[in-house]
């Protein structure tokens, strides 16, 4: 069935009227032979019969049409999207223009979204790759920082060790000289003793700081009588307060024989640091310490009427190595840093409140679970032995060896001194001793190897390490090798005798 020409014309006219498409006919030289009436609706206003179409329509320029060809989405001269179809025949080309606005909008929505998503995906991949690179870089930096921290810690430990040995000697001989000195000499020697103690405390602070950085600080909580700790601290700091005529009081709210579980030596260290600072920076007035124990929480407040700290300096006061300028006071600037870190390790917090020219209040709390006393603690006294002890001492520092020998012999101990680990091993093969005192760092054969050989030979004589190394790793290694005690120089002779008493049967 076919439509008659009238019907075709009618349908064509109807379609033209709906402006959905237009057309024009060209000869092979691009001359317009025929054009639909509605071309103007698509912006082709000058396309009249007889004109060269390439003069009017840019998209025809240079185009080579030898077969059916279509430009599916192109802008009309009016700026609207159109679809252009070229239908060539032997001598003419029919160009059909169709409205493509709906198709344009549909594609635009889809394509815009798809392209934006792909761009976002690309950006995301790039960012993820950058994050990965940054992560690798950070990990490398972290390794480098850890190595730097390890080297710093190792350096501090080394310095501490090297300082501690001669200092032990200075302090020991100063004590000996003090025994038989006249008043003037005693004053000079006391000054030397104070300076040596100060130097030792600086070294210990440096070492502690290094330990915190390498996470080597370990707490050793044990049953502790609080009154004893505060009494010890008071005995230590009161002379300083009296020298400066500062009114010093300690008030506690517990009964005698109140036992708690905490690391007593670290608590002493914190109290001495804080109270010592308060006295140091108070030239007149008072330093008041108030301590209370409630619900397993020890709260201490130290209030002074000293020079105080400005608001600006208060922000920096806990930073390592920071010291307030122009105070005329010496120190490492580490005391408060270390104190705060210890308090945090003990489950508490440190707070400082200060007004410049008025005074400072430092308060802190630490966890202190109460406990029933499990043993009776006696005041430390020099141990007396029923018989004369024999001690083999391996120590390469002649001054220290002489000092310890002198102090032990004063207590009736017989001492044999050798200068290295090899000589100690050899001596123990031929002679029995009650106790061995062993330095760690010695020439020929060091303390570790000597202990290893002694234990390897089946010798069970108690061995006490006596070293300037205060690092936990050395202590741990000594224990692993079978040592029975570990003392850090400068060694307190009372500690040494107490250990001897526990070890020697």
């Amino acid at each position, binding site marked *: 069935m076919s439509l008659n020409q009238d019907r075709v014309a009618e349908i064509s006219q109807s379609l033209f009227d709906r402006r959905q498409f237009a057309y024009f006919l060209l000869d092979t030289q691009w001359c317009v032979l025929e054009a639909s009436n509605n071309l103007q609706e698509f912006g082709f206003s000058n396309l009249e019969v007889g004109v060269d179409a390439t003069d009017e329509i840019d998209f025809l*320029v*240079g185009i080579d049409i030898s077969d059916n060809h279509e430009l*599916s989405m192109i802008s009309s001269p009016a700026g609207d999207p159109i679809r252009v179809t070229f239908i060539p025949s032997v001598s003419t080309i029919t160009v059909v223009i169709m409205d493509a606005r709906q198709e344009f909008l549909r594609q635009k929505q889809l*394509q*815009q979204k*798809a392209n934006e998503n*792909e761009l976002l995906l690309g950006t995301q991949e790039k960012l993820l790759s950058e994050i990965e690179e940054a992560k690798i870089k950070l990990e490398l930096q972290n390794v480098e920082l850890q190595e730097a921290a390890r080297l710093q810690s190792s350096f501090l430990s080394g310095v501490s060790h090297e300082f501690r040995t001669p200092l032990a000697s200075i302090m020991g001989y100063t004590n000996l000289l003090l025994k038989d000195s006249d008043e003037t000499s005693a004053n000079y020697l006391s000054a030397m003793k104070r300076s040596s103690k100060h130097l030792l405390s600086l070294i210990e602070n440096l070492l502690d700081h290094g330990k915190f950085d390498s996470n080597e600080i370990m707490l050793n909580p044990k049953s502790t009588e609080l009154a004893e700790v505060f009494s010890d601290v008071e005995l230590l700091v009161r002379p300083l307060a009296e020298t400066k005529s500062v009114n010093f009081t300690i008030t506690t709210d517990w009964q005698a024989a109140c036992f708690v579980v905490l690391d007593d030596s670290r608590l002493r260290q914190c109290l001495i640091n804080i109270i010592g600072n308060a006295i140091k920076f108070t030239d007149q007035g008072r330093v008041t310490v108030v301590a209370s124990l409630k619900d397993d929480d020890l709260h201490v407040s130290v209030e002074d009427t000293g020079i105080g700290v400005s608001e600006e300096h208060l922000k920096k006061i806990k930073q390592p190595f920071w010291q307030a300028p122009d105070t005329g006071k010496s120190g490492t600037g580490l005391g408060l840093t270390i104190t705060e870190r210890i308090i945090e390790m003990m489950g508490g917090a440190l707070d400082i409140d200060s007004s410049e020219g008025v005074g400072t209040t430092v308060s802190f709390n630490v966890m202190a679970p109460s406990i029933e006393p499990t043993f009776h603690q006696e005041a430390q006294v020099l141990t007396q032995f029923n018989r004369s002890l024999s001690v083999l001492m391996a120590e390469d520092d002649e001054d220290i060896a002489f000092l310890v020998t002198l102090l032990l012999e004063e207590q009736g101990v017989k001492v044999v001194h050798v200068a290295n680990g090899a000589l100690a091993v050899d001596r123990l093969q031929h002679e029995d001793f009650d106790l061995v005192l062993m330095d760690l760092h010695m020439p020929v054969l060091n303390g570790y190897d000597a202990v290893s050989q002694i234990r390897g030979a089946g010798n069970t004589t108690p061995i006490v390490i006596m070293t300037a190394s205060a690092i936990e790793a050395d202590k741990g290694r000594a224990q692993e090798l079978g040592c029975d005690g570990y003392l850090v120089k400068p060694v307190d002779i009372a500690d040494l005798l107490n250990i001897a008493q526990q070890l020697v049967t």
Partner: protein
Amino acid sequence: MVGDFAVGKTSLTQKFVNNVFSDKYLTTIGVKIDSVMVDDTKVIVWDVAGRDSLSPINANYLVGAAGIVFVGDGTRPSTIDAMSSLWETTVDRVGDVPVVVALNKHDHPDWSVSSEQIIEFSNRGWDVFNTSAKEGENVKSLFESLVHKMN
């Protein structure tokens, strides 16, 4: 103007023809046609929709081209790697016409193009320009170079 999507074909064209630039990304659908005079030559620029993962370049838009500007995004290496395959599509349809290359977004801090790629394009006889439609860098030189090669 041929290249992947969002490399800056429309931005380079609009900068050259109308001296305008917009940061907003608007994808081109189909082809946009503009004309401009370069000296005595009327240049009709076919700004062809970029290739994307869903659709290839519509080769019908390349028919009759007298020269090609390949555009890549200097911050997206894949768009520069894509030029070789785009060239195969193009040469298949229009023959060995003159080519210039725009490595666009040269103003962007992430711009990174290997010298090996530039040497490879140069060895093909293509003039390579580091362009910035945003700053106008090398935009005029890019088109003038192509017109010179076509003439």
